[in-house]
């Protein structure tokens, strides 16, 4: 019997105003104040009192102790702190779900804060720190996007994928962001604009890349039982799993297929739900190829075919599988997975306003990276 299935729910979400803050840089900004704003909103959204929070999971926060002190959460029963890699967002949620499912905590707040834009984060170059990374940087190889570009080039070679095949993903994200007042980049782009955008790391162009912006996101997770009495309709966690692909490179030689298949199989079995049941997917899109890899690895379409599958509006809001309905990392906000998770909750609750997917009961979050995580939310257990 599953220890995860429908035992927990996401009951509160809060975010900062991504678009406004993009135009307002502040080199003295810290994540603590941003998180406090998002935390207030998430608490309000959940209807819970701050005193009920007994678990704190920090992601990309320099000090969990400072964070707890700022939020006035003095005696959380569990506390974890994850480093500022996007892959850790799903790890944070999984940790919270496990903590609640096993009774180690009753109400867990996952808090994430990012001041990368104000701090001038570049995600490449001199900031690379891993000791073996010198074997890459001495050739000028750097930045996560470059390692994804390496996989995408291989993918193109193996499956005969032409230039421009990523455009539908970038265009759809931007189209969705246009309906999201909180998004950073809201002006739609055309195929020609996409093709004319400069290369960052060829074969990837500017519009294939995530944004760099400041912000914070907070999600509150509690037991399904407690969730039923709260303010908003619960987003029940139907299933969740993770598996990894840890080598010397971000680049995975099987494009994370082995790890993803392991996750997908256990997730779908546990949840009793699969791709045909999903009403919208929120897919970690640090770079647009990751969306193609995710759709294939999680069984939405056969290997090597996602670049054709995403054409003709299939992943747009009105399509068969709406993907990244708030605009994703390339258009809404680069909250390293968190804004996507919040969007999954809002879609399942039916509160996504102008971008709401009609009759959305099941949402799927996927992060394909050296740590693959995925879960399914639904409105009825």
């Amino acid at each position: 019997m599953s220890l995860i299935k429908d035992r927990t729910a996401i009951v509160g979400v809060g975010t900062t105003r991504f678009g406004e803050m993009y135009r307002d840089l502040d080199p003295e900004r810290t994540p603590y104040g941003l998180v406090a704003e998002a935390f207030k909103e998430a608490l309000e959204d959940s209807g819970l009192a701050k005193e009920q929070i007994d678990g704190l999971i920090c992601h990309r926060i320099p000090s969990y102790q400072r964070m707890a002190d700022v939020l006035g959460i003095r005696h959380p029963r569990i506390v974890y702190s994850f480093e500022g890699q996007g892959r850790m967002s799903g790890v944070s949620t999984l940790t919270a779900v496990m903590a609640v499912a096993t009774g180690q905590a009753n109400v867990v707040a996952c808090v994430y804060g990012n001041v990368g834009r104000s701090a001038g984060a570049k995600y490449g170059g001199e900031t690379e720190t891993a000791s073996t990374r010198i074997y890459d940087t001495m050739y000028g190889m750097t930045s996560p996007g470059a390692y994804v570009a390496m996989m995408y080039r291989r993918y193109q070679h193996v499956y005969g994928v032409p230039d421009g095949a990523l455009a539908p993903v970038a265009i759809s994200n931007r189209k969705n962001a246009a309906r999201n007042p909180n998004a950073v980049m809201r002006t739609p782009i055309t195929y020609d604009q996409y093709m004319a955008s400069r290369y960052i790391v060829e074969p990837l162009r500017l519009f294939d890349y995530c944004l760099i912006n400041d912000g914070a996101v907070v999600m509150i997770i509690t037991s399904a039982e407690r969730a039923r009495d709260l303010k908003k309709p619960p987003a029940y966690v139907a299933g969740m799993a993770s598996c990894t692909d840890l080598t010397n490179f971000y680049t995975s030689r099987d494009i994370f297929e082995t790890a993803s298949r392991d996750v997908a199989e256990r997730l779908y079995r546990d949840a009793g739900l699969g791709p045909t049941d999903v009403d919208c997917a929120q897919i970690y899109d640090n770079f647009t190829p990751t969306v193609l890899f995710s759709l294939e690895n999680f069984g939405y379409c056969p290997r090597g075919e996602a670049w054709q599958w995403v054409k003709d509006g299939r992943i747009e809001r009105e399509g068969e599988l709406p993907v990244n309905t708030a605009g994703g990392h390339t258009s809404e906000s680069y909250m390293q997975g968190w804004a996507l998770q919040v969007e999954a909750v809002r879609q399942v609750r039916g509160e996504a306003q102008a971008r709401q997917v009609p009759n959305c009961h099941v949402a799927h979050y996927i992060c394909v990276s050296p740590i693959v995580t995925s879960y399914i939310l639904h409105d009825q257990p």
Partner: protein
Amino acid sequence: MPPYEKPLPVLTALNRPYFEATKRGELRLQTCSQCGHVRFPESTHCPRCLSPEAVWTIMSGRGRVWSFIVMHQKYFRSFASDLPYNCALVQLEEGPLMMSTIVDTPAASIHCDMPVTVVFEQATEDITLPKFRPAST
């Protein structure tokens, strides 16, 4: 010669044999004394059998381009005048994947699975970098 400003490793007891070999024009990687597994980058233990014993054996220098990118973004000031430049993941005949640069050919002619052979380019007195060029047919 102007000073070399691109990123370079700090030599340690663990990695020195690699760079002493490249300086002599040899590509040597650690081969596990117990199970024969060839590994890169260097480490204290064999990731297959966890033996701490290894010898630095000479590689064939032959491999294939698993994939490659062309860098357009200026992440490193020291590479600014090289832009755009290629980086390739080369799979050695002996198994390991290595990052490198493909030389002696324009970027437009590089392709996945292209056979390549190692060449050596001196960076500083101590450090010589292995690079790869298209294998002669």
